[in-house]
């Protein structure tokens, strides 16, 4: 893992010189998280795909302005998330969040955390999350469902890091109210 940032930096430098293969590797490394961020925003897989594709093309064009001393992922997520927001606005629709609790993690045995949270509770928690206002839902989804850092979340949502902190705290409070006591 320690080698990755250096490798990524080299790929960025090569991509800035026009090396499409290098950029392709960067895309592969980040396309899943970028697509999922876009999906959270657009709530539509096709729109999210377009947002991710267009975002990566825009990032390629803007790579000369990227500061190589900084991590690439937040920068990419900011661009893709902007594309996703544009699509969401232009689409003018609010589809129901299509996330659902997976039947299983696909692993042979559930993790301790999975075992501790039963299927019904997972569904209830997701339903409560889905009912939150947009800002609250997105900040929690980025932080906890996608596991983004505060900086990455801030980049994706186009807000300051401090806003992520305060918004997360308020969102958790609202979620707690909506989730309610367990049966």
């Amino acid at each position, binding site marked *: 893992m320690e080698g990755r940032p250096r490798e990524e930096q080299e790929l960025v430098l090569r991509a800035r010189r*026009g090396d*499409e293969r290098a*950029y*392709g590797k960067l*895309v592969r490394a980040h*396309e*899943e998280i970028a*697509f*999922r961020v876009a*999906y959270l925003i657009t709530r539509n*897989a096709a729109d*999210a*795909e*377009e947002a*991710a*594709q*267009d975002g*990566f*093309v825009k990032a*390629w*064009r*803007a*790579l*000369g302005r990227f500061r190589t001393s900084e991590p690439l992922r937040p920068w990419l997520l900011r661009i893709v998330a902007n594309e996703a927001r544009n699509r969401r606005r232009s689409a003018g629709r609010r589809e129901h969040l*299509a*996330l*659902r*609790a*997976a*039947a*299983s*993690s696909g692993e042979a045995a559930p*993790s301790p*955390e*999975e075992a*501790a*949270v039963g299927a019904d*509770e*997972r569904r209830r*928690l*997701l339903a409560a*999350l889905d009912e939150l206002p947009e800002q609250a839902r997105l900040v*929690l989804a980025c932080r*906890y*469902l996608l*596991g983004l850092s505060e900086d990455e979340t801030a980049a994706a949502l186009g807000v300051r890091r401090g806003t992520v902190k305060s918004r997360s705290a308020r969102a*958790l409070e609202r*979620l*707690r109210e909506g*989730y309610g006591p367990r049966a």
Partner: protein
Amino acid sequence: MDLERELRALVLAWPETPGLELELELAPRVRRRRPLLVAVALALAALAAALAVPQSRGSILRLLHLGGVTIERVDTLPAAQERPLGAGLGPVVTQAHAEQALGRLLLLPAIDPPPPLHLSQNVVSLVFLDEGRPVLLSELGYSDAGILKKLTGGLTSITSVRVGGGPGYFISGGEHVFLFPGAPARLAGNVLLWQAHGLTLRLEGRALTLARAVELAALLRNR
């Protein structure tokens, strides 16, 4: 368990991440202008040929791929004229020859007698009449479905469509230019592009509507 841990422990069924296939040009460091046209290049060989002719294209603003078809949104109109749909399609070949060249069975309309098939650089084409108007059907022998979609403004409309469950585009309105292997550039009519049975197909007609194009596409069969 506290709420944050419960959230982190959720296992979600995300939509499958699509493999993003980006075709990139070196980013032009110039102020963007409004796209004026869409150039439709058929087959990568044709694209390469077009790129070799400096006056034939301007800066590429956007690239779309559908199998062997490349759609470019560019900012400068290449020199092109209206030409008959059947011009420059290559020599007439037998169906067996055409299918051998593509490595696939062709999808053909039910027309008796069948219209002649032309072959040029791995592209099989035929022209037939639909409601009295000529329609050009071209088929390519491969279908690596790397799609980069971009639907932006401009004089030409590019609509993402599904044809028989597969991906496609309908290109209409405004002027766009068709580059065919070995043929001079020409102004194209409305075009439906789609993929089916391992083929990339292209249907063109001056007055072709999306609805009619999709109907015609549905009538094509291995014959």
